[in-house]
């Protein structure tokens, strides 16, 4: 399926987004490099059921980093403004990895336009003693070490730099720089966020790759437990990016969750 690539401007902050399908809106907040990094099959699968809207976070890929932005809370307010501007309602908000952190920052602020929250191997909180690494230090790893750690099957991450244009490489580097900018310290979490998860009073699903070696399982278990209507499910044979490695399984879990637990009928019960 062909995506529409659209420029959006929200309060003078510009970014681009990919849009697929029609129906109930699903806002997908991407992990590390962008919504189409490594693969976009998962977006296509979701578009069979949803109108999928997958922006680049401001500062990533094709967009410039807004000079006033400092941390993921700025991204959260940006997305709340975006939802308002686009007149979106009944939104299924999905975030993967870093995007899961951003999605959680959105949801603790307001769930008014949201019908459900889906977090795929999210960052955002930590639960252990200070000297325990709840989230592996990606900034201490070489590119190949990170791929080996984060994918169950590293062949999903094979990328031929030789065929990439300078523009594509520039977007890749900008995304990596933006990840440093937003997530360097405190490392990939907001120490206060864990205290406000009780505000997310909508159905929530935490999807975890059963072989995720980036985030400790204890951290995700606690995360799901602290979401008032949350639960965790695992995708077998996937690492930190189950939506890339197992797109059909993730789409299946997500659609079933929305259908059964987050539909208006489910809410009435």
């Amino acid at each position: 399926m062909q995506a529409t690539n659209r420029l959006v401007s929200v309060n003078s902050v510009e970014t681009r987004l990919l849009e697929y399908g029609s129906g109930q809106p699903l806002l997908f907040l991407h992990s590390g490099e962008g919504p189409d990094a490594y693969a976009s099959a998962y977006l296509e699968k979701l578009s069979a059921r949803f109108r999928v809207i997958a922006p680049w976070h401001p500062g990533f890929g094709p967009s410039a980093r807004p000079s006033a932005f400092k941390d993921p809370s700025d991204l959260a307010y940006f997305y709340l403004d975006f939802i308002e501007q686009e007149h979106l309602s009944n939104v299924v908000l999905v975030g993967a990895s870093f995007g899961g952190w951003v999605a959680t920052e959105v949801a603790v602020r307001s769930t008014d336009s949201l019908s459900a929250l889906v977090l795929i191997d999210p960052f955002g909180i930590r639960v252990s003693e200070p000297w325990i690494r709840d989230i592996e230090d990606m900034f201490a790893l070489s590119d190949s070490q990170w791929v080996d750690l984060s994918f169950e099957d590293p062949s999903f991450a094979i990328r031929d730099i030789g065929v990439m244009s300078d523009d594509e490489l520039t977007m890749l580097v900008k995304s990596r720089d933006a990840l440093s900018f937003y997530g360097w310290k405190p490392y990939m979490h907001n120490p206060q966020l864990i205290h406000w998860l009780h505000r997310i009073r909508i159905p929530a699903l935490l999807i975890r790759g059963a072989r995720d070696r980036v985030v400790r399982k204890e951290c995700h278990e606690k995360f799901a437990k602290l979401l008032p209507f949350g639960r965790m499910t695992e995708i077998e044979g996937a690492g930190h990016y189950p939506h890339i490695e197992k797109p059909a399984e993730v789409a299946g879990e997500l659609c079933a969750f929305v259908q059964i637990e987050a539909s208006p009928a489910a809410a009435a019960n």
Partner: protein
Amino acid sequence: MEVWHFSENPYSPAWDRHPPSLRVDLPNSYFEPEIGAELINRYIDEWAMCDELGLNIMVNEHHSTATCVTASCSLPMAVLARETKNCRILCLGMPIGIRADPVVVAEELSYIDVLSRGRLEMGLVKGFSTEIAPANINPATVTPRFWEAHDLILKAMTTHDGPFNWEGPHFQYRQVNIWPRPYQQPHPPVWVTGFNPTSAAPIADRGYKICAGLNARSAKSIFDAYRARFAELGKAPPSQDQFGYLVLIGIGDTEKKGHDRVRKIKGYLETTGITSEAFLNPQGYAPVATNVAALRRGNRKAIRVDTTRDARPIQYSNADVPDLIQAGTCFAGTPDQVYEQIADFHDYVGGFGHILGMMQGGHLSHAETVKNITLFSKEVLPRLEGLKVSPNSQDN
């Protein structure tokens, strides 16, 4: 011409055990305290002898590494302020981009300036890429953080009417009022390192001394950009005193001895890159275009390509001495040869006023370091007085 003796104070015994990484993640069990005590005391002695030899002193610092055990520039400078009487003492630099507290930096530097009765020269730097992980400073914001720390330090040193307020993006204080204040007024001379021509403008704008290093072509482009910026601002051309150049120096009674010495000092260059790509090039530290080029080369560590003066690519870690002389990375040989190389380089870059000479590095022993420093002081230094740019130097 002012000449400054510099050593990174390496803990070279760890190098002999060939660990896969020398920076950030090398366990400190590699550091034997008794051997370290000998080395650190020895390096301080070598600096102190400069006072009698007409040389000045340059110190620096790195962290979590066997390439440099100076934990803070302030520490050897404080010791040397007491052990010396005449020479000037330069840190190049104080890594204020990664320092937690710029106000303490301002107080420590002022203390050293007072202790030495006004002999401090204040080099301010961002902090090398491998300092990002030990200090845990965001690499994507280290440059604006550096300039804000700079602004705060200079304001702290030059404010004498009680506390002032500072609420910046990176640093917040409501009562800044340093004691002691600097001995030199309005503040000690400031140096900043330039790594490429684009870094010259903000340094020239403030009239600070600029320091380039290890490569003649790069130094020429940086010094040219600095002079061009002065012209653009309508200022009189900068004096040679505004320009410093960091270089390895190996000098001996024979050419072979000089080359042998610089080959040992060159351990510094051979060990610089021995660390992981993630620590050498943290994401967000280098400009986007630099990283795009590195990705194209298929090596995230290959963030720059060095060249000789005639534009041949060169790798410092495996190049031999003649190529390194050609590149401007070292001056080496007999006193006559070293003098000729300096004069030639001086012409090539359009003049400069400070040689920051690494006369100890790598495994160069104490005895050899003493000879190296002494020979330079006795045989080369007197001839550098009044070195002028020859009229046809722009032909280079």
